[in-house]
């Protein structure tokens, strides 16, 4: 277990290095003069020259990458042009609300999805299974941004039960937890329903496989009770198989959060990114993507470690 954790942690560094390289590389796709693209057409020649020097545009790209990486390690992601403040500060300030949103959606989606998937597998080919399958089909086919709009229409516009937007900050003293919760319901629901659909779908398949496995039949042959078979043996088997799926699902939730934060005006990193793209604030985009990708890598690491804890046969790739 400890050896496995160590090896997985070691694998983290090349992946993170690769992630920075990709982020750096993508930004060099920008057509034309990067300094001009970052500062916009109204920048003064002095500012342009200064930025060109900062970015070391006269050096070959490997040298630029090393310089950029050096700054990155020191926490310097550059200054946001649109916000006129350090990128890292802006990004970290918005990370919390996004994690809150995605985390809540992930927990609810996982519990809901696993329960539905297990239930469908236990009632394989009966009406419960069919209903879950239809729900799953809708869940994986519905655009989450459209679902968000429908929820706003229903609960905010027509019924007036819940707010559709209005959260400007999550952590300030003036904001009560109850208020945050009220604002969280609709965006979390839009994300969680979709995630639950995906998890239920794969969970159902995994549960059908596990329940049909020979060791489950052998548990029955030993006279072990059915609820113990389901809740101990089958559930652990399904959970072990679902860990990577849940890890991956976090990535889709982070992506979905970009839409949902935009729709519900949630003060998260996703909305910051969309705004930054609209403002052509490339350094801010770079920083936001980098931070979210790092968070995602860590989540996947946790998922892998959990999976290994559940199933010791798994070795690092």
């Amino acid at each position, binding site marked *: 277990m400890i050896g496995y954790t160590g090896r997985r942690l070691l694998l983290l560094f090349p*992946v993170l290095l*690769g*992630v920075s390289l*990709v982020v750096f590389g*993508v930004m*060099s*796709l920008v057509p034309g003069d990067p300094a001009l693209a970052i500062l916009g057409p109204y920048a003064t020649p002095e500012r342009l020259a200064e930025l060109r020097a900062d970015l070391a545009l006269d050096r070959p790209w490997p040298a630029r990458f090393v310089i950029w990486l050096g700054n990155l390690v020191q926490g310097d992601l550059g200054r946001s042009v649109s916000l006129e403040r350090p990128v890292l500060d802006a990004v970290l300030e918005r990370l919390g609300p996004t994690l809150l949103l995605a985390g809540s959606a992930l927990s609810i989606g996982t519990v809901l999805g696993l329960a539905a998937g297990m239930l469908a597998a236990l009632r394989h*080919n*009966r009406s419960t299974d*069919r209903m879950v*399958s239809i729900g799953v*089909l809708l869940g*994986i*086919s*519905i*655009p*989450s941004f*459209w679902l968000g*709009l429908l929820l*706003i*229409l229903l609960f905010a*516009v027509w019924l007036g039960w819940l707010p559709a937007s209005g959260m400007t900050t999550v952590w300030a003293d003036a904001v009560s937890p109850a208020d945050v919760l009220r604002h969280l319901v609709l965006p979390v629901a839009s994300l969680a329903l979709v*995630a639950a659909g*995906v998890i239920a779908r*794969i969970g159902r*398949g995994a549960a*059908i496989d596990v329940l049909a*496995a020979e*060791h489950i039949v*052998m*548990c*029955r*042959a*030993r*006279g072990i*009770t059915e609820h*113990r078979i389901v809740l101990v*043996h089958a559930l*652990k088997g399904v959970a*072990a198989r679902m860990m*990577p*799926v849940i890890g*991956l*699902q976090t*990535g*889709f939730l*982070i*992506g*979905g959060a*970009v*839409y949902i934060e935009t729709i519900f005006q949630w003060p998260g990193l996703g909305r910051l990114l969309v705004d930054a*793209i609209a403002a052509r604030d490339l350094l801010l*985009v770079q920083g936001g*993507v980098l931070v979210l*990708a790092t968070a*995602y890598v860590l989540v996947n690491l946790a998922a892998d470690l959990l*999976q290994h804890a*559940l*199933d010791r*046969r798994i070795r690092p790739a």
Partner: protein
Amino acid sequence: MRWIGGFARHERGPVKRVAESNGKRESAGSDPSVSDSPFSDAGALRALLRHPGARAGLVLLSLVLLPALAAPWLPLADPTLTEPARRMLPPLSTGHLLGTDQLGRDLLSRLIWGARSSIAVGLSATALAALIGILVGLLAGWLGRAADALLMRGIDVLMAFPYLLLALAIVAALGPGLANAMLAIAVANVPFFARAVRGAVLDIRHRDYIAAARLCGHGELAIVRHEVLPNLAPTVLLLMTTTLGWMILETAGLSFLGLGAQPPQADLGSMLGEGRELLTTYPRVAVLPGVVILVMVVGINLLGDALRDAIDPGHRSIGPAPRASRRTDDVEPRQDDGGSTGVESVADTDTDSRRQLLRVRALGVAFPTASGYADAVEGVSFDLGRGERVALVGESGSGKTLTALALLRLLPEQADLQGRVGFDGRSLTALDARGMRALRGRRIAYVPQEPLTALDPLFRVGAQLDEAILAHAPSADPRPRGDKLIEAVGLAGVPVLRRRFPHELSGGQRQRVAIAMALAHDPDLLIADEATTALDVTVQQEILTLLQRLCEDGGRSLLFVTHDLALAARLCRRVLVMYAGRIVEDAPLQRLLIRPAHPYTHALIACSPELGRPDKPLAAVAGQPPAPGALRQGCRFAPRCPRVQPICREREPALAAVGAAGAVDAGTDHVSPRPVCVPARHRVRCLFPMEDA
């Protein structure tokens, strides 16, 4: 579809599939002419079109696809023509079936044209991602080593990005626009294809048919083209269908954020995005494009599921509903191995039945097929005495394992179970689930063939042993009993062993653990199902000795299921021979080996190689056993029998005492067996048994 991530990652695989159980269990000759090939493309297509999900999907998809394809020829208004004077017309206005939007553009026309560009973008992105992904996956999987490591680390890095973020970053750099959005989505999807294809290639690369192609002198390129690519088709096709829906959703998403289609160009996503501003006042402008996306993607996903079912029938998303039990009006067995007393109760209490521990009467197992139920086991009747060791011998597909599982009512759910089983004076078939559970593992224990798959891979051996003990003795401390059991089956080092996971043990150790668990409650009857088949001969020898000792010590009964007569001979004094789902002979071991009465038994002995007799002619039986349900009439062995008579193909013989057969007939007109002097309890199912030939 968002689940493809999970699907694609699966190849790195949390569960390493255990090697196919073992060679001996290979399926016996099914009738090949009737089976649809999942690999023949015509067969797959037929199966696909019969699938109700596929039909529903096709209907939904064509609802969107047909108008979108025909858009240039439909009498539609120009989707980009703005008419501020005619803005926000309600549906059913003249000339505007669905009304107009905030700029007075015809909504129906915009929906159809928008769907057209959404589909086009989704298709191109899928094709692009598939192309690059296949190339990367093929190179990595086929070349292996350094190329594999390098390419897959690259793919890992791409997968380290939350899916949409990579696309966002690319669009941010390239600038907004539908083409850039398409490119970005395609790149973000490459990892899924690359991983799936690599996984498939790795699997194919180690197949024997690839080695066979090398043996035939073919070069690498020819092998990839001829042997690998055709086998990738299902993987890629499946992934493309599943990704297509997902890509349509995500390009719509980018357009929704204003990063895809730019005005005046419109796709469904950008319409939704523009309509968002009017959500409170004119909801239909935002709702309708979403409906079109939903209908289209549901259709694609339904088709994808159906395709998966057609390609991989083992993993049906949703199968046919279980039918009501067949022949509800005909529960009485049509025919019974017990001869004329077929309807006696298995639970009666006369002295004879008290001597018998297990009484099986007219046991039948059938499975639903496309053309009704097929009998895999039919009319099996036998008794098993206390302390008796009986072998159930048969080739693969003979129904011996199903018979063993049926005794414990452990058959798969769709199996139909007929007949009666009596155990120690009680009827097992009449027991409820709770009563059955109380017997399993306590009075009747089961030792399976492959102990690696029979132990839960996720729990330590000690925990599973304790669990088996606690199942019927919930209050006791299971450890002392468990330690004793481990020692009883000849395993050393109890504390270390308890902490091991099943995969950390050798095959012999695992089988000993499985036997220890079976012994946990000192059962009266042990059912060992090919318990030594997966083991090497020297280990097999040890396990057989162990089983023998355990049965002799406790006066325990044993039902030893095996394909190998020699193994049966090692352990049992009585043998039941099964063929095509029926018991064809029941005889004491010596009698069976020296004077088999059934031509099949005779053939089985004659065609087994024997050590020390290399010149024994192997009288091979031509042909192969019939598939379940293939033969409805006559003796099941008639098509292969060297002594077959015309009547054998019409009448099925009953299992009757040797010497009393000949005239005995199945079904309606039973002929009472005449008493003759034969060795005790030699029964045969043959109209013309081999009597001292």
